[in-house]
């Protein structure tokens, strides 16, 4: 697949601009962050003036109840949104996978929520959740029901941000699941139908197992994104009430800008990055494993045919 007889330098010339930018503005900052996580550093200081404290930032974090609370909130949030969105998204894809006239328009409308800025999504939902003039509570009281303290109650606040995230990101899973469904081999579905498999049997024994590789990658992508969520929560609750919605990325931002403890924020960023790297590596390993398995199966099939 490569073009012969080009100068050895050519690929590096093509790569040079990207490598420069990535090195200067991405790799170097990440390394800088690892270094900063061992410092006691505040924003008015030059990093050279900051005091070296070794692992003290990490030890502090492990013993810090509000960091543990924030970690717990993040895990709860991620688990809730990913599982609910997977079920809804895949379910909708299975339901809507048919010849439909307006499918293109429908998909266009569905991807609108995830194209809009997270800040604006937060704004929208903050208005919807407004205790007195918000449409949600207005409708509830018009129906004669009790209004809900969407953002002001520590129990409801997390539910409210989960709902907003589900609204924004379920379409992502729906679109990917639908693409996976439509690329399934037609012959298999035909064979199942001829053998008399019911709709549910087709879904459980054929469609879902065949979609599984795509679904697992989708799930991991969503999980990685769920740990990155920040703006929607910032606009909706700013972490409150109390610490009930203070997810990890928000805590990093607040530690850096409000508490002015850059070292601790860097240590937290480092832990978050490690977690995300494990997830990404898992995704990468999984897709590599699927590839080699597919290659082996193909080889076996060819050997059988010969």
């Amino acid at each position, binding site marked *: 697949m490569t073009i012969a007889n080009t100068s050895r330098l050519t690929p590096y010339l*093509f790569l040079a601009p990207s490598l420069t930018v990535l090195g200067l503005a991405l790799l170097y*900052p990440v390394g800088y962050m690892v270094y900063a996580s061992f410092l006691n*550093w505040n924003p008015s200081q*030059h990093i050279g003036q900051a005091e070296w404290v070794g692992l003290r930032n990490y030890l502090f974090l492990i013993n810090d109840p509000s960091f543990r609370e924030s970690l717990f909130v993040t895990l709860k949030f991620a688990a809730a949104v990913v599982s609910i969105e997977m079920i809804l998204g895949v379910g909708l894809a299975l339901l809507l996978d048919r010849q439909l006239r307006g499918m293109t328009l429908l998909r266009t409308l569905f991807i609108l929520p995830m194209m809009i800025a997270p800040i604006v999504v937060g704004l929208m939902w903050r208005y919807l959740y407004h205790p007195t003039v918000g449409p949600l509570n207005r409708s509830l009281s018009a129906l004669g029901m009790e209004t809900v303290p969407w953002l002001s109650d520590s129990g409801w606040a997390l539910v409210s941000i989960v709902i907003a995230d589900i609204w924004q990101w379920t379409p992502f899973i729906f679109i990917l699941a639908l693409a996976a469904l439509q690329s399934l081999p037609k012959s298999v579905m035909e064979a199942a139908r001829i053998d008399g498999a019911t709709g549910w049997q087709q879904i459980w024994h054929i469609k879902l197992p065949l979609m599984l590789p795509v679904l697992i990658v989708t799930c991991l992508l969503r999980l990685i994104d769920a740990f*990155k969520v920040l703006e929607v929560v910032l606009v909706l609750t700013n972490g409150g009430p109390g610490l009930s919605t203070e997810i990890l990325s928000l805590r*990093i931002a607040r530690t850096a800008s409000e508490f002015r403890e850059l070292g601790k924020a860097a240590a937290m960023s480092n832990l978050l990055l490690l977690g995300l790297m494990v997830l990404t590596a898992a995704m990468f390993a999984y897709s590599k494993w699927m590839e080699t398995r597919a290659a082996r199966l193909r080889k076996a099939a060819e050997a059988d045919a010969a």
Partner: protein
Amino acid sequence: MNDSRTPAQHPGFYALLVLLVVMSVGPIVLMLVTSLRLNVEIMSDTSSLIFVPTLRNYEQVLCDVLWYEPKGIDSCDPTFARALGNSLFIATIATVITLVIGCMAAYAIVRFRFVGRDGLTLATLMLRMVPPAVLLVPVFGIWTFQFCIGDQCAAGTHWGIILIYVAMNLPFVIWILQSFIVQVPIQLEEAARMDGAGPFRTFFLIVLPLIRPGLAAAAIFTFRIAWNEFLLANALADRKTRTVPVTIVNSLTEYNIDWGVIMATGMLLAIPPILFTLLASRQIITGMTAGAVKG
């Protein structure tokens, strides 16, 4: 599509479709409607569905750049209009730079064999997931103290923000464009090379026009991230270089929220991505599925 291919669906199915469309578009429509009402009316207890839409909120937000003198606005705050200009400039330039250098890198990875190719592929994959929150501390430190030319440091300038946006988007753009470049028939490139075109000419004149759909998808994704990003812009921008998301969050911290005005600003921030979606939904969906399915 004739009728034999689209069998009649259960009526409940259409009800579900309508419900889904209402749920996904409803909040956006509500925001649009709210942005066309005055705050007094929004906050009043007897709000009705029937109202006279007004552009007053938009006039107040954009007062500085309007070609006419809006009536009934006593003081003009130029903050938002300036932020809109900043956002447009930063997002556009960041998108152009990311695309140009990203597609060159993707081409090198697909078409050439060189030392460190596998490592590079892995690195772009891993860098893809670095979230803005993780970059906050180091980028603030480096941009404020180290990336300086004379007295002028990268923090607070348009170019400082553009640099981090380019870096953030490059891994994804490189990755997504690879899957499009692989599909370009290599014979075309070989023919061009036979005719004496160098690698750069082959790339810009033969390959680039063929991967236009991929470029469109990558451009939309990059623009969207640069246009929507808040956290790093907030840390880096000063008074003169603030982007729209930063001004929106700043105006939210005030005690009395003017919902009409803030929804108008939100709408203005949402309009470009909505337009892109309506115009190029096919490319967006191709890009999304190529990113996940072919991972």
